[in-house]
């Protein structure tokens, strides 16, 4: 069955929540959000999901304009969202502009913080998220501007960098799970939480990952797995959750899921 790279990425994003307990799944930007929705609709129905504003929904809401809304099952104002995340009951998959070998990320500014070349959003809730609950990251454009050499320009979320830890101790609840990009899936399973390849997307050579990453990526033992294709059931769910095909606008040219040689 044909599928697009965006649909493969949604499926790979959904996998970050496999096996998670009954807690809040937050996916920010369309592909991670579809991933969270897919995880809930297929293999992890206990996940909590919001309307991206301040209500918990019984079922994920489709992206974009829609008739009506799924049944609301709870209230999630920001104050309560903070209390929940400080309690650790959440796994977020967010889309930073930069990430480094420590898993530190940046959404604040590019360049010198006092006189940035490009001002972005600000750190938002990234610092608190990173030291209170598991986090995964999504990068739509895998290149050396996004996966940087050295450190990100302004560290918004904590990573496995002892030089930055308060009192030299790893933050008690720091737990980085996966990085999903348009080329591959990685985790922090190397020695000292070094970044390690989990799978390559179909048709992507390892050299392309190496050439486009500003830091070393360790290889898994044995053959390198291929990122699993979405099942027919998953594709059906994705298409119903994104009836306006917003996912087709995220990656340049909306490439196919299996790269042609």
């Amino acid at each position, binding site marked *: 069955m044909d599928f697009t790279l965006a649909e493969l990425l949604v499926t790979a994003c959904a996998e970050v929540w496999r096996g998670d307990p009954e807690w809040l799944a937050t996916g920010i930007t369309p592909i991670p959000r579809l991933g969270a929705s897919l995880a809930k609709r297929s293999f992890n129905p206990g996940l909590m999901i919001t309307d991206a504003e301040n209500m918990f929904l019984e079922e994920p809401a489709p992206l974009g304009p829609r008739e009506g809304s799924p049944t609301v099952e709870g209230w999630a104002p920001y104050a309560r969202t903070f209390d929940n995340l400080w309690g650790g009951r959440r796994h977020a998959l967010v889309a930073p502009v930069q990430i480094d070998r420590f898993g530190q990320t940046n959404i604040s*500014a590019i360049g010198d913080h006092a006189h*940035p070349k*490009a*001002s972005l959003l600000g750190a938002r809730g990234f*610092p*608190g998220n990173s030291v209170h609950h598991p986090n995964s990251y999504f990068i739509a454009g895998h290149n050396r501007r996004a996966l940087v050499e050295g450190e990100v320009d302004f560290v918004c*979320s904590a990573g496995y960098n002892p030089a930055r830890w308060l009192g030299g101790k790893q933050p008690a609840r720091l737990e980085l799970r996966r990085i999903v990009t348009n080329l591959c899936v990685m985790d922090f399973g190397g020695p000292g939480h070094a970044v390690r390849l989990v799978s390559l997307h179909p048709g992507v050579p390892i050299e392309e990952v190496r050439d486009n990453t500003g830091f070393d990526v360790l290889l898994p033992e044995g053959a390198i797995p291929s990122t699993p294709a979405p099942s027919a059931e998953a594709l059906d769910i994705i298409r119903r959750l994104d009836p306006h095909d917003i996912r087709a606008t995220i990656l340049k040219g909306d490439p196919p899921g299996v790269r042609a040689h």
Partner: protein
Amino acid sequence: MLDKRMSVDAIVDQLADGMTIAIGGWATRRKPMALIRAIARSSLKDLTIVSYGGPDVGMLAASGKIARLIFAFVSLDHIPIEPHFKAARQAGLPMWEMDEGMLHWGLRASAMHLPFLPTRIGGGTSISDAPELRTIVSPYDDGETLLAMPAIRPDVALLHVHRSDEKGNVLTLSSDPFFDELMARASERTFVTAERIVATEDLGLPGNARYHLVERPLITGVAEAPFGAHPTSAAPDYQLDLRHLRAYAAAADSADAWDAYRRTHIEVDPDAYLAAVGGADAIRALPVAVY
């Protein structure tokens, strides 16, 4: 009989150069924009602004009012990067950047008259490099090093609410109260604009008790300002005006574009503003934003 009613301009007259001002709401929701526009056309200067930022920050920055910004983000949500804020920041606007929850914590410390509250937030990040922050070691057996988030004590909080009586009993009817309550508790004085000022018996209490923001002694003055949050939302009364936010954002494209926006939307009285943005019926008819 307590009567705290005053005009928007009278509230601005209570402000002074160099003040630290907390602004309620969140990004594109329930921002006291009538007050922000009044500040933008005033002679006030050198303000320190504390905000979960949206067009309030952008408009004040573009108007040259901000000496320093205390913030975690500035965004128009549907337009993720606030262009006026972006321009000011890239020009070197002094700022203290932190996490959303640290801002909450700093306001809470002030509300409790504490010097600081301990937190892990900011640890492991560039946020903890800020000269304003110090660490503290837990005095208990764990011995953990924590950040001591200092109290943020604004001189004034400015909030927009749905209903108030003349004594300052205020209701925010939207589904998220944000951190307006903490801003009121943290600040020396709080002024609010209200969609409508009504008789106390018309506040709908106790049915609306969950919407009652804070005890009235914390509210110094209240001004009636219908559509006072526009172009941000004051749902359920009205939704955010995305078309206007786009026009406001486009006004960052050039000095001429900003001058034109200023002339037509800031240097005008409330009736002219309302006419310029399409009138009351058009605002009431704005569709619910899709997220």
